[in-house]
């Protein structure tokens, strides 16, 4: 039977479902009878969820201002009248 130690090395393959059916079944059997590994797997899932909830930082105010200036700049420099005839017409781009 799979040991607990081995199971802790298979958690990502298991969660990603990148393992042969046989191994997948061995993991299922193990967690059905082993409380420690059930807890371990639950913690792994909690960890993943937690990571997905980490909020990003807001952009610093100076970056906002500078980027908007570059945007105006890029736009007025590179846009030839022929490229975009009507502002906001995304169909022009999508062709």
């Amino acid at each position, binding site marked *: 039977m799979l040991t*607990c130690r081995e199971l802790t090395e298979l958690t990502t393959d298991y969660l990603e*479902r990148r393992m042969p059916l046989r191994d997948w079944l061995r993991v299922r059997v193990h967690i059905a009878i082993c409380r420690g590994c059930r807890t371990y797997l639950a913690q792994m899932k909690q960890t993943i969820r937690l990571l997905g909830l980490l909020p990003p930082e807001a952009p610093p105010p100076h970056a906002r201002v500078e980027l908007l200036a570059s945007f105006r700049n890029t736009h007025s420099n590179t846009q030839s009248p022929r490229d975009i005839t009507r502002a906001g017409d995304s169909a022009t781009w999508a062709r």
Partner: protein
Amino acid sequence: MSITIPALSPSASSPRQDASPATSAAHPEDAALVGRLLAGDEAAFAGLVEQYHGRLVRLALAFVADRATAEEVVQDTWLAMLTGLRSFEGRSGLKTWIFSILTNRAKTRGHREKSSVPFSAFGDGHTAHEPAVAPARFTAAGSWSAAPEPWIDETPETLLLRGEVRTLIERAIAGLPPAQRAVLTLRDVEGVASADVCNILGIRETNQRVLLHRARSRIRAALEQHVRRDRC
């Protein structure tokens, strides 16, 4: 005695389902957004900056040594993105495309600067074996000698509400080796599909999985240590 089998239906075993990869399904909302950007819609661009700037800085920090450099790389990324907007084909989605631009810029920058983290780590992540759990936690036969205790009323949300947990996770991420940090940030923090992560970072799928496994294991261990200390 009854044994509770946790709900582990196949659909529940992967927290964020990867979208089917190869379908070159258009991303209609991306196309609309790109259209607005090309038309010079400032509000659209401001919204994009609001949405992505902090996330780009977070990813850049996996490649360069300090925040100031990361901010510069992100500025470069925005400019490169605006310049390349016309050539965006929508095959990969705007998010993946922006992260790719950032990664290329950040890697180049990382190579150029002596102060930056070495990125040879990406060649092949199979260095010395790094166990997911400290060997001391197991008996000689490989069973738990010190099994993990459930984080009972600690749902991710309640944990995260506590600012110190957020700091702890952020610090744990910052302490990861560069390649692990980049993979974890893209996969688990940003929710990018594994095929896209492989493309963005230029690594093989198996390698990606090994890096992800090690990174996740480290973050779990850091959290466990914290919850435990809290209980004593």
